C-alpha cells in the first residue's frame, strides 16, 4: 500500500509542473502588459521600460518562469497588485472559507446522493426510481448561478427566512448559528449539481453490481440480506462511487466560484473572480495553483481509497 501511495505521489510531480507552466502562460494571454496596467496609459515609455526591467519582464519567458517557480517553491507568492497585501495573507483565510462551503456542499451531496441512489437501485424501475431520476436530471441541468438566485428569491426575498448573502451578519457577533444561516443557501446551491450526478451514478453502479454473478453465488450460500448487500453489492460498487464523489470535489472547487459570486461568500472563488477583473496577476496565479493542487490531491485520495478496496489495483 505504501509503495502505491509513493508511486502515485511521484506521478503528480510532472503534472504539477505542467500546471504551473499553464498558469504562468495564462498570464501571457492577457492583452497589454503589466507595466501599462500598473502605471496607467499616461506613463512615459521610459518609465514603463524601467518598471519592466525592475520586474524582470524583459527577460526571456523560460527565465521568467524559472524565477517565478523558484519564488513560488520557497513560499513567496508575491504581493497583490490591487491591495498591496502579501498574497499568502490574502489567500489563506479565503481558502478556509471556501473549504467550509465546499465540504458542506459535498457532504450534502453525498448524503442525498448515496441514500436516494441506494433506494432507487433497490427499487429499480419503480415509481420512486423514475421520479427521482427525473428530478435529478432537472437539478443537474439547471445553471448553478441561476438556481442560487432562485433560492434567494424564494427563501431570502419572498419568505425572508434566510439572509440574502454574505458569510456572516455584519452587525451581529458571529457564532455558529449565524454562520449556518448564511451557509444554507450557498451550500444547497452548490450541492444540487453534484447531488444529481452522484445519485445517478450510485444508482447505476449498484444496479450493475447487483447483476454480477458473484452476488447470486453469495445468495446461494444463504447469506443474510443485510450482509449480502454490504459485503457483495455496496462494497463492489464503492470504487465507482468514490471515483465520482472525488470528481465532484473537483467540480465543486471550480464551480463554487459562481456560487460565491452570487452569494458574496468571501472564498477563494470570489477572490479569483476579483483578481480576474482587476488583472491582479499574483493573486490570480496563486489561487488557480491552490485550487488545481487541491483537486490533484483529491484525485490521489480517491485513487488510494480505491486501491484499498480493490487488491488488484494495488498490485498493478
Amino acid at each position, binding site marked *: 500500500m505504501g509503495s502505491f501511495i509513493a508511486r502515485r505521489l511521484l506521478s503528480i510531480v510532472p503534472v504539477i509542473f505542467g500546471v504551473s507552466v499553464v498558469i504562468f502562460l495564462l498570464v501571457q494571454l492577457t492583452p497589454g502588459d503589466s507595466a501599462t496596467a500598473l502605471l496607467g496609459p499616461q506613463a512615459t515609455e521610459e518609465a514603463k521600460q524601467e518598471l519592466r526591467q525592475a520586474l524582470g519582464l524583459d527577460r526571456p519567458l523560460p527565465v521568467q518562469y524559472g524565477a517565478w517557480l523558484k519564488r513560488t517553491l520557497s513560499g513567496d507568492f508575491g504581493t497583490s497588485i490591487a491591495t498591496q497585501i502579501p498574497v499568502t495573507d490574502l489567500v489563506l483565510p479565503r481558502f478556509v472559507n471556501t473549504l467550509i462551503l465546499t465540504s458542506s456542499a459535498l457532504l450534502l451531496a453525498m448524503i442525498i446522493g448515496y441514500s436516494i441512489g441506494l433506494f432507487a437501485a433497490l427499487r429499480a424501475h419503480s415509481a420512486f426510481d423514475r421520479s427521482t431520476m427525473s428530478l435529478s436530471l432537472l437539478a443537474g441541468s439547471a445553471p448553478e448561478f441561476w438556481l442560487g438566485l432562485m433560492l434567494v428569491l424564494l427563501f431570502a426575498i419572498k419568505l425572508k427566512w434566510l439572509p440574502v448573502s454574505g458569510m456572516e451578519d455584519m452587525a451581529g457577533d458571529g457564532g455558529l448559528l449565524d454562520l449556518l444561516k448564511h451557509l444554507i443557501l450557498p451550500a444547497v446551491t452548490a450541492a444540487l449539481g453534484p447531488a444529481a450526478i452522484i445519485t445517478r451514478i450510485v444508482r447505476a453502479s449498484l444496479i450493475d453490481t447487483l447483476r454480477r*454473478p458473484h452476488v447470486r*453465488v453469495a*445468495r*446461494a*450460500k444463504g*447469506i443474510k440480506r443485510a450482509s449480502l448487500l454490504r*459485503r457483495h453489492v455496496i462494497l463492489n460498487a464503492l470504487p465507482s462511487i468514490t471515483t465520482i464523489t472525488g470528481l465532484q470535489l473537483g467540480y465543486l472547487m471550480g464551480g463554487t466560484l459562481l456560487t460565491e459570486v452570487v452569494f458574496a461568500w468571501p472564498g477563494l472563488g470570489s477572490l479569483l473572480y476579483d483578481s480576474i477583473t482587476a488583472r491582479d496577476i499574483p493573486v490570480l496565479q496563486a489561487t488557480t495553483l491552490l485550487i488545481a493542487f487541491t483537486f490533484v490531491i483529491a484525485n490521489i485520495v480517491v485513487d488510494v481509497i480505491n486501491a484499498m*478496496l480493490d487488491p*488488484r489495483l494495488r498490485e498493478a
Partner: protein
Amino acid sequence: MTDGSDITLEVKNLTTRFGSAKTGVTVVDGVSFSLKRGRTTALVGESGCGKSATALSVMQLLEPPGEVIAGEVRLGGVDLMRLGDAEMAEVRGRRIGMVFQDPMTSLNPLLPIGDQIAETLTAHTDLSRHEAKQRAVDLLTRVGVADAGRRVHDYPHHFSGGMRQRVLIAAAISCSPEIIIADEPTTALDVTVQAKILRLLYDLQQAMHASLLLITHDLGVVAAMADEVIVMYAGRIVERADVDTLFHRPRHPYTKALLACVEGISDRAAALEPIQGMAPDLKDPPPGCRFAPRCPSVRDVCRRQDPRLAPYSARHDVACLLVGEEAANG
C-alpha cells in the same frame, strides 16, 4: 427399490416462466423428480432446455422476470416454494449447497477467499469469526488446496480457474448440506482439471452421504459420475433411467440421437451424426410432441398429441408416443 426415507428432495410438477402469462416463455414445464441420499442424479440436455432454470427454481434464486408458477419442492417434508426469502436463506448453503458454472466470475474479487468460505459458516452456525476462519482452512485442505493456512488470505485473482472452483466447492459444502447441486461445474475448466474436480465432488458426496444433482450437457461426465440420469428437452423430462439402462437401452429418440452424437468419437470410421434442426422456440411451442420436428422416427400422431412421461419399465420412464405403443404391442 427406493425406500421413502431415502428421498432427500422431491420435486413435483415444477413449472417456471420468464415473463408474463401472455408474452412469457415457460422454460420448465411440469418437471418432477426425486433425489436420493448418497446417489448422484445427472440432469442432461442441450443449452436452453431448462436444466439450469430447474436448479435455480429449486433454490428460489430466479430473478424477475423469472418466477415459479406451479409445483412443489419438498425437502424433508417442507415445501420450499412456500418459504419466504429469509426462511429460504436458511435452507440455502445449509441444507442445499450449490456450485455454479463459471469460477472466474463466481467469487467476489474484493474479498479474500477465506472470508468467502467463512461467511457461509457464520451465516448458518454460531461459530465465531475466528473459528469460522479456522474451519475455512480445514475445508480448503479438504478440497485439495495446498498450503491452505497461507492461501486462505489470498484473493480470487491469485487462483487459477480450477482452484477457484475448489474454493467454491469448499464454500458450498462447508455446512455439510444434504444436497449438493452442481450446475455444469466443469464446463469452464480445462479437460485435465475437469476430472480432478469431478473426482473431488464424488469423494465429498460419498463422505457426506449427500445427494448430488449434477447438471451437465456432457455425456462423458454422466457416464463417469451418475447413478441416475434425467434427460430434458424443451423444458420437459423426456426420459429418466438408471445410468446403465440409459446408455445401453435408451428408448426416447432424442436420447438415442444424443448418444449417437458421441458414439462415433472412438470409432473414426463412423460419421458424426448430428441431430437435424434446432430446439424449438419456447415462446411458441409446436403442438404435439416438442421433439417431433427433429425426430427421425416421427409419425403423424406425434405432431398432434403431446406425450406424457410414463413408466416404460422398472425405474425407466419415457415420454414418447411410439414407446408407449411399443410397450402396448408387447
